[in-house]
């Protein structure tokens, strides 16, 4: 038996390919939603507020977002940044805590004999060293879990300080690590939150495009031409994906080389480096980076993706979408109109199935239609990466079972 031509595998590849293509629409919808409602920025802000909330002192999250470096990341007054690096977080937080000392300079009121008032600054005891200011800032806080945490960072950085690493760098790296670990968890929470949106978007696409999975399964099992077309497209898509992935790996390796060379240059003047090579690599890297930036403009990317997805759906002639000749709109047509729909069909089995489903539905057809929509909604909500991953696996299975052409002819 030629495993590669196994009907069940072909049907599965075709169905998974349809899900993969339509899942792109789900991803686009979700991306649009997130961009429009500034979800990423809001989620990051909420998470940082939660991390820095200290009811016994202040909402440091609020002060953090008011800090000049973070406020400067906003693209508009109401658009919070989507990403804040660990370094930036640590530097801003250290600055906020250290600034507490500067902002709390004592003044005293002197009322003169003539009744006039005058304020005078009390002796200036603010240290110049930021670490000392940070320590004073923490000491000035009410005892709280957050204050204890900051104190533990100070203690750790003191004990680990050496000639190469000063207190400030160590403190910064401790805070960075704490923040990065927390951000790993935040990513998990964000994915969980996104899941709900994917389900909604999955149902929107399933209903908007009238994607009945049970009907698709039936049609794919009966329509060999459609199956062949879809499998060919699926294989081509998997090949393209592999090519893109290799290109990405190469560019990533190139970037790594550039950074290593650059670091070497900065760290050691005695180190012999091929500066021409670095320049060349940097040039290539900048070229790559600028292309990436242009392509990364979300709206443009989404429009391109949407355009190509819809073109593909229409090109492959997948039995989805709303028309008066297919269920459920065909159920509401007059009996005279119904008779003419499938008279020209060349596949009698398929024609008979479609005729029964579209023109003479019974209770089961109606029930299975709704079940089909629900299956589609849930399936599409898994997202494009999931379905493309499955698709690649199925295509690989098929290819591994394919008999080489030479062998095939010998056998025959």
């Amino acid at each position, binding site marked *: 038996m030629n495993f590669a031509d196994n009907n069940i595998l072909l049907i599965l590849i075709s169905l998974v390919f349809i899900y993969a293509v339509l899942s792109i629409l789900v991803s686009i919808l979700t991306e649009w939603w997130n961009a429009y*409602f500034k979800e990423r920025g809001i989620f990051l802000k909420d998470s940082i507020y939660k991390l820095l909330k200290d009811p016994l002192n202040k909402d440091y999250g*609020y*002060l953090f977002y008011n800090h000049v470096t973070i406020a400067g990341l906003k693209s508009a007054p109401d658009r919070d940044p989507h990403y804040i690096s660990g370094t930036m977080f640590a530097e801003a937080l250290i600055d906020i805590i250290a600034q507490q000392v500067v*902002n709390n300079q004592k003044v005293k009121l002197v009322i003169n004999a003539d009744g006039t008032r005058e304020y005078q*600054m009390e002796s200036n005891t603010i240290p110049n060293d930021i670490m000392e200011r940070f320590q004073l800032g923490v000491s000035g806080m009410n005892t709280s879990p957050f204050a204890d945490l900051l104190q533990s960072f100070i203690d750790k950085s003191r004990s680990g300080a050496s000639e190469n690493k000063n207190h400030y760098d160590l403190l910064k790296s401790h805070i960075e690590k704490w923040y990065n670990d927390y951000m790993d968890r935040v990513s998990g929470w964000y994915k969980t939150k996104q899941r709900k949106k994917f389900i909604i978007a999955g149902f929107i696409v399933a209903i908007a495009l009238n994607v009945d999975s049970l009907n698709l399964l039936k049609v794919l099992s009966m329509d060999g031409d459609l199956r062949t077309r879809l499998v060919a497209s699926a294989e081509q898509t998997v090949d393209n994906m592999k090519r893109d992935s290799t290109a990405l790996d190469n560019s990533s390796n190139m970037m790594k080389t550039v950074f290593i060379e650059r670091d070497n240059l900065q760290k050691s003047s005695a180190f012999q480096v091929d500066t021409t090579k670095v320049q060349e690599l940097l040039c290539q890297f900048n070229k790559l980076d600028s292309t990436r930036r242009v392509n990364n403009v979300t709206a443009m990317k989404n429009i391109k993706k949407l355009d190509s997805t819809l073109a593909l759906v229409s090109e492959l002639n997948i039995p989805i979408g709303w028309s008066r000749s297919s269920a459920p709109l065909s159920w509401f047509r007059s009996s005279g109109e119904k008779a003419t729909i499938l008279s020209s069909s060349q596949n009698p089995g398929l024609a008979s199935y479609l005729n029964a489903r579209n023109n003479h539905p019974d209770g089961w057809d109606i029930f299975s239609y709704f079940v089909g929509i629900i299956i589609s909604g849930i399936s599409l909500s898994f997202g494009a990466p999931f379905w493309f991953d499955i698709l690649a696996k199925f295509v690989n299975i098929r290819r591994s079972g394919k008999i080489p052409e030479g062998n095939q002819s010998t056998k025959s």
Partner: protein
Amino acid sequence: MEQLPFSNVHTHVFNSECVPDNFLRILPNKTVRRMPKAIKALLDTKWSRATIVALSKISAKKDSNKRNSFDKYIAFLEVATQRKQLDVFELEFEVARQYDSQVRIVGLTMNMDFMDNRTSRRQITFESQLEAVKDIKRYYPKNFFPFLGIDPRHKSGADLVNWSKAYFETGLWTDGKVFPYFSGIKLYPALGFFPFDPRLDELYAYAETNQLPVITHVTRVGSQYIGTRISELIPMKPNMLLPGNPSERVLTAQENTYNRIRIYAEQKWIEDSKIGNNDKACDLFTHPENYIPIVEKYPKLKICLAHMGGSNEIVDNSKDDPDLQQIRRFDSQLWCDRIRDMMVRYPNLYTDISYTLSDLDNPEVLAAILRFMNTPDDRGELLAKRVLFGTDFFMTEQEKRESDLYKLAMKELAAFNDLITRQNPAEFLRQPL
């Protein structure tokens, strides 16, 4: 002689992050009070505000007034929901600096941590709000003069004084002058406390000693306690700080207060409401008579009874409000007249025209304000010497644009401009020039 700086003694700089999640319950609308969070979430996005404005414009095509008022309400929300406190201040500063580059703007902070008895997920703590206010002071030391919001439920007695010293006795040095971060005290009793609360006694003593002025909210409308347990905040006979040897006036004020509470309770206006219908009950907190025990005990303390009592207490408009008509039966004197009488007697009482100035184009209100200004006090000096200019930005965005309010006041109160915008505020604030 060098001209004194132009001053606006009544503005707010808080934004939506400082207020409780149910803040919109301050609006006297049952639908809004039933689902304040949902409506706030809806109004927090630009597209929904734009949609609502567009729909309202279509529906109010023939009624231009209706459309304007809606636009103004959205303008108020635009300020409150989208900006940092610094940005809110800068909006006001942009308008005020047209009158004087050295303008002094008083920013009144409000402790809204106790405005609702339910916890708010998104509200920042009052201390955090104050940190952002301190930042504004650092950036605009000569133009911004914040007042510290006080609530006896937050801190009380000596603890309150020690806490507030961190704001009054810290400051910054700029151009050879030292400025404290906070320049006075802001009371907003409608949030759920009586100004005569004995827990504030030590603070008043501290304020009197250190010549810190107090600005307090005195109108029947505005932000108020939106929690569900108003009855717990208004006992039948609340504790009252009293001078060592209370005068007849203090005892009368005490008796009147207790009577008022009894009548309000009988009218069922002090009842717990699930949707925060506390409008009437909160009038008890803001009544001008509540300040008599304070001014009697601390005669040197400068207190500004803001808003002159509010437009609806300057000219009686109770004919459209059956509840107000009922109130007038046992509390007949208009609040504006009460404030006038108190100012005639107590030389350190002030008032301002904030919010009320939006009605200066109403001839009746204007005439009443002018009469007020021209009333002589017990020492023979006009009360105009203790009236301050303020706008109540950005609350007033619901009424008129800030620049229009300045123009209106300058036009209608031209004879008193120098007094209310420069001389009186300088005397009231007593800040370094």
